[in-house]
């Protein structure tokens, strides 16, 4: 295919012409930039085919994927032709909206469905899927040279992210321990930091807050000074999703934990401490004073949409939300800026809790080796670079992608502060929760308690007491406490 075009790309790859020169050349042949970039990857993929690995081993196999409706999936689909060409396999996929995606995954896996070979998941979910026996430990594949191509470069994955997807299955067991199983392969991830509307900040003469007290103050100031916008967007729906982004990132920055693990492996609630109480009080106060009026129904898309529409001055949430909202079509496009945020004034750096979109392999699948071919391609450096530079496959989980000059400069020009923020936060970025099977019960309850506190149904200290009691009771009931 496209022989003439390919030559042009080849010479770009060999450093003969500049990227712009190549694109111009391709455009003169009637290709759009998007198509062209797929072509670039086609060449990269062809290079991949030269590395001696038998890519065609499962030629003719048909895979089926279960995907969340997400830019990561879009980026993969845009590049899928190259995978098919590389391996001779065919790929089908089901995409579900995020509102129902995980319920769909649970329904499919719990019924023992053999329909899907691989699927998108978050690391937290594997704490259920793994022990339930629905997904495979991927270490068996990563370490097997006959199954994994030599250029896969597993070590290239950011360590905190990679470890966050590995757990030994023991309640309270440390993530990334030596006996951990790799339940999923990180794909793209989110750090929770500050994204603010620089236009609004400038107009209201606000400075970017650097710790929790400043955050509370700046949010209140923003709300007071800016007409038609509230101070800070954080999530508030009755769900685990309310706890894991900004809230836990700041919480962990004070050295606080969700659960204590005793020496004999018993778990107990750890959120009823003085520091925690102070943190909760400030957080609750911040939402009461300057949060979204309908905070208690806010999920990430409300937080993001409001920011993009200029309805909030800033968010303490996933960095990629600001990244997406900075694109065309949102009224505040181009106005969003990014800043690392350490809630604890005494902390050296932010400690963002992270969300990792990952790929997992269904145990019930009938063609696991072939599925692994797809997974290693989709999480490999070539697709990673393609997605990060040409699509919205951000944040990448590979060091090599972050080191890519083209990617860094692209981010720097359009997303001020993004790269710095990432670099500063990355060392402390990991999952700060204790891995255990009641994760969703306890975090949902935590969120519900936050809602009660914000609604002033009960004071913070009383709420924390109740939460602690309830968490301990549930842990005991499940035989974990």
């Amino acid at each position, binding site marked *: 295919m496209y022989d003439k075009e390919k030559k042009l790309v080849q010479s770009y790859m060999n450093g003969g012409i500049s990227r712009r020169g190549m694109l111009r050349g391709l455009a003169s042949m009637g290709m759009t930039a998007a198509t062209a970039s797929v072509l670039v990857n086609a060449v990269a993929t062809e290079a991949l085919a030269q590395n001696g690995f038998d890519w065609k081993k499962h030629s003719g196999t048909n895979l089926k994927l279960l995907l969340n409706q997400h830019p990561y999936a879009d980026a993969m689909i845009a590049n899928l032709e190259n995978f098919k060409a590389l391996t001779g396999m065919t790929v089908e996929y089901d995409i579900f909206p995020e509102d129902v995606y995980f*319920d769909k995954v*649970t*329904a499919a896996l719990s019924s023992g469905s053999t329909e899907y070979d691989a699927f998108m998941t978050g690391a937290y979910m594997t704490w259920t899927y793994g*022990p339930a026996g629905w997904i495979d430990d991927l270490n068996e594949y990563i370490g097997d040279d006959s199954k994994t191509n030599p250029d896969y470069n597993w070590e290239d994955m950011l360590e905190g992210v990679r470890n966050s997807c590995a757990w030994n299955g023991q309640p309270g067991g440390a993530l990334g321990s030596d006996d951990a199983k790799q339940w999923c392969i990180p794909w793209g991830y989110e750090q929770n930091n500050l994204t603010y509307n620089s236009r609004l900040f400038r107009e209201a003469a606000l400075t970017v807050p650097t710790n929790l007290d400043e955050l509370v103050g700046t949010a209140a100031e923003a709300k007071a000074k800016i007409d038609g916008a509230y101070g800070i967007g954080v999530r508030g729906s009755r769900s685990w999703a309310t706890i894991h982004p900004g809230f836990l990132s700041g919480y962990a920055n004070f050295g606080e934990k969700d659960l204590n693990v005793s020496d004999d492996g018993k778990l107990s609630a750890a959120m009823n401490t003085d520091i925690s109480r102070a943190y909760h009080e400030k957080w609750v106060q911040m939402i009461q004073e300057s949060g979204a009026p309908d905070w208690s129904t806010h999920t990430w898309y409300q937080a993001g949409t409001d920011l993009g*529409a200029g309805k909030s001055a800033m968010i303490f949430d996933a960095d990629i939300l600001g990244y997406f909202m900075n694109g065309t079509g949102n009224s505040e496009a181009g106005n969003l800026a990014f800043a690392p945020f350490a809630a604890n004034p005494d902390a050296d750096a932010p400690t963002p809790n992270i969300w990792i979109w990952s790929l997992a392999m269904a145990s019930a699948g009938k063609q696991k080796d072939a599925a692994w071919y797809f997974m290693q391609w989709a999480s490999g450096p070539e697709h990673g670079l393609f997605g990060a530079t040409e699509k919205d496959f951000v944040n990448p989980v590979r060091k090599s992608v972050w080191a890519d000059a083209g990617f860094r400069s692209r981010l720097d020009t359009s997303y001020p502060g993004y790269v710095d923020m990432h670099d500063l936060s990355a060392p402390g970025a990991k999952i700060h929760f204790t891995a255990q*099977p009641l994760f969703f019960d306890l975090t*949902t309850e935590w969120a*519900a308690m936050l809602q009660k506190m914000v*609604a002033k149904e009960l004071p913070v200290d009383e709420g924390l007491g109740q939460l602690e009691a309830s968490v301990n009771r549930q842990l005991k009931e499940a035989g974990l406490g």
Partner: protein
Amino acid sequence: MSTQTLDAPPARKFKISKRFLPYVLSLPALLVCIGILIPFFTAVAYSLQRYRLSQPWARKYNWGENYLNFMTDPAFWNTLKVSLTYAFLTVGVELLLGLGIALLLQKRSRFNNFVSIMLLMPLMTAPALASLMWKLMTNPGFGVLSYWATLIGIEDMKWASDPSTAMLTVVIVDVWVYTPFIMILLLAGLRSLPRQPFEAAELDGVPRLFVFWKITLPMLTPFLLTAVLFRVIESIQQFDIIYAMTQGGPGDKLTVFQVEAYLNFFQSTNVGRSAALLMILWAITYILSTIFIKNWLRLRERARGDA
């Protein structure tokens, strides 16, 4: 003729013995439903187990323990309270409103028929989508209802996001969606009532309020019961509207049975608790419905006897 029928063998046609006929007619429907019974019993078994998907090794029969735990579980009592409140409020308001509208539209006229069909539109809006609509309208930022609230001086109306107005908001949505259902059943009922008693009452100059209480309402009762039966069952099992509006929040203000059970299953993967919750919901519905149906059959029988 008579001699012919005597000698000739009965005409050869496919005939099912009278004794089996009813079963032949009802069995297919029954079988289809029985297929659904098997999972039902599986669910009963789940409810008697300690069963979390995330702890398969700990799965075992604990018999009534899930149910016993409810006794001391404030979350359960809250669920019960919220569900009953929700059902009572929605069905109550819908019944009054539906009856009122049906009375307004009782007379057969082009206009009334047109209005009654138009009013069915909310019923045709899937509850999941209706909730989306109302979420758009009650958005504190740009929602038109929030804007109107400010116009009449309610500055900080947060609708479903505020614990004090969350129930009100979901009840409004439920009322919006389901009142037409009651309305249409009652309208049909009103229009099918015999005319004579009303004409007689009018001739005798009986006050209209009296006619309503003493003639209309009693004659309408079977229709009311059918409407209420279906509504109560659905209302106490409400899921779509509440889940779409608030997922049971804020706090635990709206954690009705099905929402709680859904979250228990899909998020906590606590199958045992989820199934036990649903079993209790089933029992409540069963008891309520039995009462309704017994009364309904009795009333119907009586109406038939009079006719």
